[in-house]
């Protein structure tokens, strides 16, 4: 009973109470803390009280949504009033938010029960959940390997059956890549679909909140509850939210799937990963979809472009952590310069510092045009690539990552090779498009994700294709042997 859908059925049938689900989730989080380190903060008492309310609603027949009474964890970068939000950073280790994020408000009105906060790379910077004051989270398929990142904690929570769903944030693949590494579904909606109010910013023009679950249908339910226009986020899109689950007809006839020529080159990618993705696409083809080859000619520039834009924005977004108003202030400082220097030197980890330095550099006088402005121009070209591609197809299928989960520590000394692993995911953030990663098989015992990308605001078509794949396959029903 570890999927959202199974828990829904159990609650509706009265076979289980929300109290029980929440208690079990909390217990499992504790039980797996040492081995997986997925959940870094629990709010057991509050969660149990909220579960009791959900159970009362069940008795009165006042179900708020399909999520009512179901436990989840939030990546530790979405604020909840009265609760800590650390972003896995020393600089925020004692920060307690005075306000709620929009997603927290919406989850509450949906009746979902947040049991705690999940691990991540510090300030969402990383692809392995190794850069965390809480230490690395581990992959339940092989605890010597990373779970991906930066939303590693939420992915592991779902993969290891702690909670049936979770929310993460995706700036360059931070939902899709850990979903791929841990064998769950992870979705990044269209930029602007889910409000960023209360999401601690990494790179504002790229960040987007999205769900982790075991099935596409569950993701559709979750998205329906958290999406929608929000006046508190100026970049939030003022469009109505469809009932995404209604679009899941299972029918892909007439649907055209594009395979980007530039993504299926074996240089730098694991051939077995590419083969599984091709097999996944073939499955949809046999179900009636048309498959065409497309071209995304600026693919070679996307990683560089992404790291210029993301670090530039991050250098500015993280300036507020200065030791002056909240968060960590270095002790024993005697002047302002020292307060800034020491608080930030002690408070930020190496990867965050690296990105602040990079971003500060690319925005500096004399370098701005060559780096930041140029990156913005390339970003426009990348958008153009997708616009042209979507004239020829309805969804694009690619690998989520060039390889399966790597070993913990394997890339910590080689940030560039870590960055290059983002090659397939960053484009969707640069172009603001929705993307989803689906389990599509195992390579050497480790999960592989197939990524599908859709047109902006057309999550319906994307989810329909992804759901059709899951109706015909059972990759998503596989569980890590030691944690099922």
């Amino acid at each position, binding site marked *: 009973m570890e999927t959202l859908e199974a828990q829904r059925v159990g609650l509706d049938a009265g076979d289980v109470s929300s109290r029980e689900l929440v208690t079990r989730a909390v217990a499992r989080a504790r039980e797996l803390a040492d081995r997986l380190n997925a959940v870094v903060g629990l709010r057991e008492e509050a969660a149990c009280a909220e579960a009791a309310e959900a159970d009362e609603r069940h008795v009165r027949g006042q179900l708020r949504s399909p999520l009512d009474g179901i436990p989840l964890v939030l990546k530790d970068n979405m604020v909840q009033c009265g609760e800590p939000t650390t972003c896995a950073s020393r600089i925020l280790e004692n*920060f307690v*938010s005075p306000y709620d994020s929009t997603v927290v408000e919406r989850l509450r009105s949906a009746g979902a029960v947040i049991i705690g906060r999940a691990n991540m790379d510090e300030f969402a910077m990383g692809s392995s959940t190794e850069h965390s004051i809480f230490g690395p989270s581990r992959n339940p398929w092989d605890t010597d390997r990373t779970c991906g990142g930066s939303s590693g904690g939420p992915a592991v929570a779902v993969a290891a059956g702690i909670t049936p769903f979770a929310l993460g944030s995706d700036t360059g693949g931070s939902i899709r890549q850990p979903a791929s590494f841990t064998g769950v579904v992870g979705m990044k909606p269209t930029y602007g679909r889910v409000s960023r*109010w209360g999401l601690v910013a990494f*790179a504002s023009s790229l960040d987007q909140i999205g769900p982790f679950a075991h099935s596409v249908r569950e993701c559709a339910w979750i998205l329906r509850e958290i999406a929608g226009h929000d006046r508190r986020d100026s970049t939030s899109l003022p469009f109505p939210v469809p009932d995404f689950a209604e679009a899941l007809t299972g029918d892909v006839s007439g649907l055209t799937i594009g395979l980007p020529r530039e993504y299926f080159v074996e240089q730098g990618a694991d051939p077995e990963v590419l083969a599984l993705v091709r097999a996944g696409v073939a499955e949809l083809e046999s179900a009636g979809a048309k498959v065409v080859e497309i071209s995304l000619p600026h693919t070679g520039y996307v990683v560089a472009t992404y790291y210029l834009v993301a670090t530039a924005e991050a250098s*500015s977004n993280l300036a507020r952590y200065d030791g002056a108003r909240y968060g960590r202030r270095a002790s024993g400082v005697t002047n302002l310069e020292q307060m800034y220097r020491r608080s930030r030197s002690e408070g930020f980890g190496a990867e965050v510092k690296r990105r602040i330095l990079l971003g500060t550099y690319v925005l500096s006088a004399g370098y701005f045009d060559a780096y930041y402005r140029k990156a913005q121009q390339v970003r426009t070209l990348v958008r153009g690539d997708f616009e042209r591609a979507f004239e020829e197809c309805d969804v694009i299928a690619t690998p989520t990552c060039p390889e399966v989960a790597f070993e913990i520590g394997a890339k910590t000394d080689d940030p560039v090779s870590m960055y290059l692993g983002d090659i397939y995911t960053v484009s969707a953030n640069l172009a603001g498009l929705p993307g989803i990663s689906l389990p599509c098989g195992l390579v050497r015992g480790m999960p592989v994700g197939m990524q599908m990308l859709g047109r902006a605001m057309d999550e319906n078509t994307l989810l329909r294709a992804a759901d059709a794949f899951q109706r015909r396959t059972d990759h998503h029903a596989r569980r890590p042997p030691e944690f099922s």
Partner: protein
Amino acid sequence: MNRQPLARYEVVIGLEVHTHLKTESKLFSPAPIRYGDKPNHNVHPIDLGMPGVLPVLNREVVDLAIRLGLATHAVVNKRSVFSRKNYFYPDLPKGYQISQYEEPVVSDGWIEIEQSTSAKAPAKNAASVADTVSKRIGITRAHLEEDAGKSIHDAAVAGSDDTHVDFNRAGVPLLEIVSEPDLRSPAEAGAYLRSLRSILRYIEVSDAEMEKGQFRCDANVSLRPRGSEQLGTRTELKNINSFANVEAAITAEIARQAAILDDGGEIVQATMAYDPETGRTRVLRLKENADDYRYFDDPDLIPLIIGDEQIEQVRAAMPELPEQKRERFQSEYGLSDYDARILISNRALADFFEQATRAGGSPKSVANWMSRDLLRELNECDLELEQAAITPAALASLIELVAEGRLTAKSARDLLPDLVREGGEPEALMQRRGLEAVSDSGLIDGVVGEVLAANAALVESIRDGDDKPLNFLMGQVMKATQGKANPGEVRRKLIEKIRG
């Protein structure tokens, strides 16, 4: 030789004015704007730069920016963009200020200043418009930005040697209005500031009170030899906090630069501060250490798009501008150009005039009393009209008392200082001070008789056709009645008695 630097050098001045916009809430947060509240009482998580907060533009400011654009004959840009100006300071909560950089909301405007041709500085409340020329000063741009908080270093306030920060002001909307380097003297700079402030108040964009920090000015100053076309190296005078100091600071900076140039030295680009105590300017920091603000478009905000329709709506609802008011005062009230110019020179004067007129004062008398006596009195008390206790109704009734002959013009002028300082009812004040005009014919007749008797020789020469001594005799009568007799009546009676 240092005495008159402007005889040898031409000064080139450009001003940057930061003015608080008159809105209910802040530029990007719903926190209220109230002056004088306890520190950190008007703050929202947005104003503190809490993790996860996002700015949302207060739409109120857009109309105000359009108003300023229209009032300064400027272009209201259909698209403008908010950028981040990145620097660290404790009163800057996010580590960046949201401002407009490459694409401001308003550009390419101008305003007119009235500049006295005489050397005398214009009066505080109104330009002396007798000998003035008007000059057009270009406005390069005006852009929206958020104000910072306030650092409090004062141990008495902060309660210790620590620095404390008050974020009540953080996020208050500002328009930064940048002039072209069109100003050629400290007096012109002063006139520009007064004119700009007057416009801002007229169009209700800002209260522009310098003492409250709502209207702040930086001045860029450079000198060049007279006749030269090439601009000299400029320095920037920061945060000049009063009107008086603007002209004094620029004058001091001119003197400093002239002394360097006279000695064959070079001006170094720098940020300067003016010390009113010493009357000198000093270097705050050199520009070669110029900060790199790493401006880039704020990804949390979308471009500000302004449609023609919105501009036309604002235009239709625009409060009357000074020039329009001057024309109306001439046509509606029959005022002279001179009086009308004085009265429109600031919004408070114009409103006071119209209120006094509505309270029954004849427009011409009200204008006369205001442009001469009232303004002189305000200047003597060093008060702005808004700070004075006199009400428009009080001025109207003072004028009425004179018109009725119950108060002589001289006595009325004597009452003015009290009315300005303490307020009150002119009639009651007149009675309390015993200044009511003598209307007792018998009494005046008696005094006239005495004066004529004591000056028989003069009476004779008047009878012989020399009118000159008449004024002396009048003076004697007025003196004997302590100025309370009606001068017209005294003159009539004197002539009656002399000519028989």
